[in-house]
C-alpha cells in the first residue's frame, strides 16, 4: 500500500458489495417475487435490474424483492422509491424495459409514465 488513493480505490470497489449492510438513504427497487410474480417472469426482471445497476455502478440503489403486492394480473410488478419521493409502481415489466427505467427514472428522476400502474389502469378504462 503506497498511497491513500490506493486505499480509496479498494474502499470504493468493496463499498458496492457491502452497501446493503450500511445505513443509507438510497433508491429502492423492489421486485414482487411471490409465486404469481415468479410465474409471470419476475426473476429475469430482477436480474436485469441487478445487472443494469451494477453496470452503471449505482452505489445508492438497493435491489430487493418482496411478496405478492396484490394485483397478480399486473405482475411482474416493480416498485421504485427515490429518496424523498413517493413510490412509483411499474407493472408488467419485462427485462427489455429495465434499461429504460433505470436510465430515465433511477438515474435522471423522470418517471417512465407509460410503464406505470396509472397507465395500465387508464388502458383498462378504455
Amino acid at each position, binding site marked *: *500500500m*503506497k*498511497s*491513500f488513493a490506493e*486505499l480509496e480505490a*479498494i*474502499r470504493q*470497489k*468493496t*463499498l*458496492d*458489495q*457491502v452497501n*446493503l*449492510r*450500511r445505513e443509507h438513504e438510497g433508491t*429502492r427497487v423492489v*421486485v*414482487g*417475487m*411471490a*409465486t404469481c410474480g*415468479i410465474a409471470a417472469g419476475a426473476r429475469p426482471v*430482477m*436480474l436485469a435490474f*441487478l445487472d443494469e*445497476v*451494477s453496470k452503471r*455502478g449505482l452505489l445508492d440503489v*438497493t*435491489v*430487493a*424483492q*418482496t*411478496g405478492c403486492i396484490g394485483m397478480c394480473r399486473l405482475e411482474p410488478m416493480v416498485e421504485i422509491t427515490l429518496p424523498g419521493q413517493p413510490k412509483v409502481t411499474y407493472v408488467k415489466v419485462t427485462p427489455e424495459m429495465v434499461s429504460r427505467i433505470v436510465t430515465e427514472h433511477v438515474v435522471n428522476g423522470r418517471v417512465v409514465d407509460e410503464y406505470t400502474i396509472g397507465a395500465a389502469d387508464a388502458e383498462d378504462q378504455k
Partner: protein
Amino acid sequence: MELFRSHVLICAGTGCTSSGSAQLYDRFEELLAQNNLEKEVKLVKTGCFGLCEAGPIVIVYPEGAFYSRITKADVDTIVSEHLVKGRVVAKLLHKDSIEETGNIRALDDIQFYKKQKRIALRNCGVINPENIDEYIAFDGYKALCKVLTEMSREEVIDQIKKSGLRGRGGGGFSTGMKWQFTYNTPNEKKYVACNADEGDPGAFMDRSVLEGDPHTIIEAMAIAGYAVGADQGYIYVRAEYPIAVKRLEIAIEQAREYGLLGEGIFGTDFKFDLDIRLGAGAFVCGEETALIASIEGERGEPRPRPPFPAVKGLFGKPTLLNNVETYANVCQIILNGADWFADMGTEKSKGTKVFALGGKINNTGLVEVPMGTSLKEIIYDIGGGCPNGKKFKAVQTGGPSGGCLPDELIDTPVDYDNLIAAGSMMGSGGMIVMDEDNCMVDIARFFLDFTVDESCGKCTPCRVGTRRMLEILDRITEGKGKDGDIERLESLAYNIKNTALCGLGQTAPNPVISTLKYFRHEYEAHIYDQTCPAGVCTNLLQYSIIPEKCKGCTLCTRVCPVGAISGNLKEPHVIDKSKCIKCGACIEKCKFGAIIKK
C-alpha cells in the same frame, strides 16, 4: 463488479459456532446452489452480533431481518420463503424484532441494541473478518493513512490523551499517558504489545473483537507503533481462542500482502510488523509484567514495578502494552477526533465500554454502552432482567478481581471511579448477574477458589494468604464456621490487598470484601444460625416434609435413592435426616410442594 440483491450474514463467533452456525452456512450454500441464487445472494461469515443467548444468529439484508436460534431445518424455510419469494419468515425472527403492527423493527431499535453504542464492536457482525477489503470499505486503514501522512507522532499522542481513553483491560490508566511515557523513553528499539490474554470467568469481549474485527487491532497497533517509535508488535492471545487466533493470522497475512504491515507503509519510511504469541492459559499472564515474561519465553510470573514496561519492558526495551478493547477504540478516535470521543461518557471515563453479560440474565451476550449507563439499564433494559421471574440479588463486575454490588446500588452509573467507590471495579468488563437463588458466600468462595488455582506462587501473601481465606470460606459453607471467622477473613483480606506483588493478589480478596460489606448477614447466617438463606450450601440444608401438605402419595419414597423417606399410603411421610443425602430428588417429584429445604 459483483452486486448482490441480498446479503445473508451468519455469525461465526465462538458462541454461535458452538451452537452450530458452521452447519447453517453449509446448508445455505447448498440451498442457494439448488435454487440458482448464488449470483443474487451473498453469504457472509461475520463476527459476534452480541446477542449470544439467541444464537445461532442469521441476519438477512437489505430487510435487516434478524433471525435467532436458527436450526438447519429453518434454513430451508428462510431460503424458500425469504430468499426465493421475498417473504420474511416472521416466526423465525427474534421475538423482539417484530412490532405489534407486524412490521420488522430495524436492528438498532431492538431492545437489546437500542441503548447500545457500538464503537469497539462497530464492525463485529457487519463485516467478514477474513476479508480485508470489507474492513477497508468500512473506513479501515484510513486512520493509519491519516496518521502516517498528516500527523506528527506528538499529535497522535495528543489526540489519544485528549480523548480521555483509559485502559479497558481493568486498571483504567490513561492510555495517552502510557503512550507518552513510552515515547519519552529514549531507545532505538521499542515494542508495542497487545494484551489478549482474557482470563476473567465470563468475559469474552476481547475474543469477540479479535474474531469479528481483527484488522482494527492491527491498524491500531501500527498507529501506536508510529506514535511511540516501535517497529515490532506482539499480540499475546490465549491458545484457548482458536477462532480468534486463526482470524488474526489471516488478517496479518492479508495486511502484509497489501503492504499495510512491513516496510514503507503508505509510501513513508515507517515500517512495522506484527507477530502472535500464544498464551498457555495462565490467568496471571494477563498481568503486564508476567505477560512480558511469557512473551520472552520465561515463566509467566510478575515482577515488581517500577520499572514500568514503558521504561523497561519486552527484552529490556521500552514497551507499550494495551488491551484489545483499548486498541479497538484508537482508529475511531483518530478518524473522528478526540472531542467526539470525549463527548461520550462521564467526567472521568470517556467513550463506551463493552460488557459480557452472563449468569442469571435473559439476554446473555455482549453489550457496548456509553460510560455512565446505569447498572439497571444494562441489566433490565438491555439484559432483560433475571429469567423465570426470580428476584435480582447482586451483580458481580470485574471478574475475580471485582466485587458484588447489591440491589441498592443498581442505579449506579457505571464508570471506573463509581465502581471502585462501590467496592468493585471495571475489570475487563465481565458482568455476572445473580438472583435470589445464589448464595453470596458460595460466590465469594467460587472466585477465591479460582484465584487460589491461578496464583503463580511467587509472593507469599497471594500464595498462602488466599489459600487460608479459601479454607475459612470452605469451612463456613460446610457449616463448620466459627465465631471470629469473619474477622479473620477481613484481616487476611486487607493484608493480602496491601502486600501482594501484582494485581492478581492485590485484587483477589475483593469478592470477599464486597460480599462482606453488602451481604454480611449471609455470612452470619451460615456461621451462627447454621443456615444458608439462598438454599445453596448443601451441608447447611435440611429437607423436611410439611405434614399438612403431604397427601401420602408415596412418590417421594420411590424416588429417594437412599430410602430415607418413609410413611404409609395417604398418610404424611417423614424424612430420616440421618439417612438423607440432600440430593433434592424428592422436591422435584413432589406435586404438592410439601417438601422444603432450609
